[in-house]
């Protein structure tokens, strides 16, 4: 009896020690995450703006009015549609490019694999601002390299960033190029974890390269797909830097590259409509949450 009592006492002491160990982390999360989130939410229920900065008594609690205004705002929906296009087109392109390059740089036949991996990963490490300056030149309507290439096959020059129809495509191309390297590295690691004997057995059974890829590589990469898909989608929903840098912070032309976060930034820090901007943030949070839950639900049954 006394031993169990001692054990329980020991367990309790241990539990307290455990709590003491996590307490600093929890405290930090509370101070730097939970509290700002709560404050942000309360802010989204007010019309806090420049006049509120000057005189707090000018701040009115407006309840859900910011949210109602936001849902009626054509600019918000424009930004939302742009962001969705970016996620739905850019996401799969990024994951596809990452998988393709991962398979290529992992293939035995490939020479200088380390070099290629490094080169393909380089854009991830490069500073976006510097990269964007270079891409602005690539996209230049008159002197741009891209139009030069198109000219070789007889296509008229395209005004990539100036034309509302092509501006988002230009942003997507840049983002895919900039981001796929990160997912590629994850795919490379996952590919290495697939036992070689599976491929050997498949070859003995007469499977060709495509069949091996389709029946062994893809299914075994399932969990990695999920991870890469979810993180890419979450990242892409928060699209901001690329259009900010390429369009000098406007999201133009004609709001064609205005993303939800850029819209929030402009409302909050350019016009000081802080309350409204906070409500944009919470709507974006809800959208990402729903989208992630959907993705988790849509994954194949066997992996659940």
């Amino acid at each position: 009896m006394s031993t169990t009592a001692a054990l329980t006492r020991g367990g309790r002491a241990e539990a307290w020690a455990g709590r003491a160990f996590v307490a600093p982390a929890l405290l930090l999360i509370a101070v730097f995450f939970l509290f700002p989130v709560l404050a942000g939410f309360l802010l989204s229920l007010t019309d806090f703006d420049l006049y509120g900065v000057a005189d707090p008594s000018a701040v009115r609690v407006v309840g859900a009015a910011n949210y109602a205004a936001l849902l009626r705002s054509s600019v918000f929906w424009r930004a939302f549609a742009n962001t969705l296009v970016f996620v739905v087109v850019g996401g799969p392109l990024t994951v596809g490019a990452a998988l393709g390059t991962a398979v290529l740089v992992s293939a035995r036949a490939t020479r200088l694999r380390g070099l290629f991996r490094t080169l393909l990963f380089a854009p991830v490490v490069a500073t976006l601002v510097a990269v964007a300056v270079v891409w602005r030149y690539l996209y230049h309507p008159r002197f741009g390299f891209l139009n030069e290439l198109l000219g070789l096959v007889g296509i008229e020059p395209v005004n990539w960033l100036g034309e509302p129809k092509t501006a988002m495509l230009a942003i997507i191309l840049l983002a895919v190029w900039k981001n796929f390297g990160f997912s590629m590295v994850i795919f490379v690691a996952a590919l290495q974890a697939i036992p070689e004997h599976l491929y050997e057995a498949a070859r003995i059974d007469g499977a060709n390269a495509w069949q091996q890829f389709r029946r062994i590589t893809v299914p075994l990469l399932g969990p990695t797909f999920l991870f890469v898909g979810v993180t890419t989608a979450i990242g892409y929903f928060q699209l901001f830097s690329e259009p900010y840098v390429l369009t000098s912070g406007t999201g133009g032309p004609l709001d064609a590259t205005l993303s939800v976060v850029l819209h929030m930034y402009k409302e909050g820090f350019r016009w000081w409509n802080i309350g409204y901007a906070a409500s944009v943030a919470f709507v974006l949070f809800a959208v990402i949450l729903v989208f992630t839950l959907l993705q988790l639900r849509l994954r194949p049954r066997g992996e659940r």
Partner: protein
Amino acid sequence: MVAGGCAGGGSDAVQLWGLGREGEEVARLLPPLANVPGVAAPKVQQIPWTAAHEKLLTAFVGRSTPDLAQVGNTWVPELVALGAIEPLDAYVAASRVVSSADHFPGVWDTNVLDGHVWGIPWYVDTRVLFYRSDLLAEVGFDRAPRTWAEWRDAMRRLKERGGPDRYAIILPTDEWPQPVILGMGRGAELVRDGQWGAFRDPRFRAGFDFYLGLFRDGLAPVLGSAQIASLYQQFADGTFAMIITGPWNVGEMRRRLPASFQDRWATAPMPAPTGEPPGVSLAGGASLVIFRNSTRKAEAWRIVEALSEPAAQVRFYALTGDLPAHTAAWRDPNLAGDDKLAAFFTQLGNVRSTPKIPEWEQIATKVFENVQRAVYGGAGLDDTLATLDADVDRILAKRRFILARRTAAP
């Protein structure tokens, strides 16, 4: 700059925030101050233009504003609304250096709100017509057009002579000053009582129709500023014969284009709707403001005075190319003898402030958003202006509440 910073590095020195290039050069103007008894040279902090607006507001929230700062004169209403800056009426009244009589009235007026003076113009800025005098001569104009009718006629002839790849004028579709300047041409006030959009006003409508007509009739290409490959090259090769732009481009044209080209372009005040030029243009530039929290306001004011002296203004022009706010400085041969600057001096006699409300910048973006709807999306003139007014009314909703509360309070 280092010398200026260090010489006045004591904790008693006036803190001065200068923006961009002006912030770099201001220290060079100030060492003579060290000789003025009772005035320590200020401690200058240079802030990039792009970050300045945000930094001023965060400094206000964090109660760390400087004593003195250079601000775009369109920011003054915002700083007044915040209660961040000090009215300067008493200082001006007692000053032997600073007087509204020495300033361009339109520019001085940008700093006057609620009957008080809040900032002293430091340098001025406005837009005029830059044009290819040689091309205009080819179509029968030996001088710049003076009225809107003449101007349109000249543009039509330029286009006819130039053919499909050449345009009479360039009006970037993502810039609001051009439609606003033309809209104000007939005297429109843009915002009524500082509370309601007034873009449907027939006076604005007339100017805006003139503006849109230039696109409709193919006299101006439908291009955003990002799509203009090289403004200077294309001005030189005749792709467009006219630009409505500001003094900074006088320097750029001289720097970027060969000397042989320099007598083939000229500047002129904005044509007037009818009668004599100058037509209306914008009162731009930067002002010096003193912050309410400052404990060294008298010293800060002495620096404002030192920078306002005509001699300092001339020197400032030599260092930066910024046009002097003090009219006496314009008598200096470097300014008076410059044929490209004469148009600016004339123009500054008829400049107007954009509505002096903190929301103006936000309204300005609505202007070009609606311009784009009209130019790209084919929205009709009246529909565009109605949407614009609705947008503006929405932006000003909070302001109406504040104003109503202010009048309700005793």
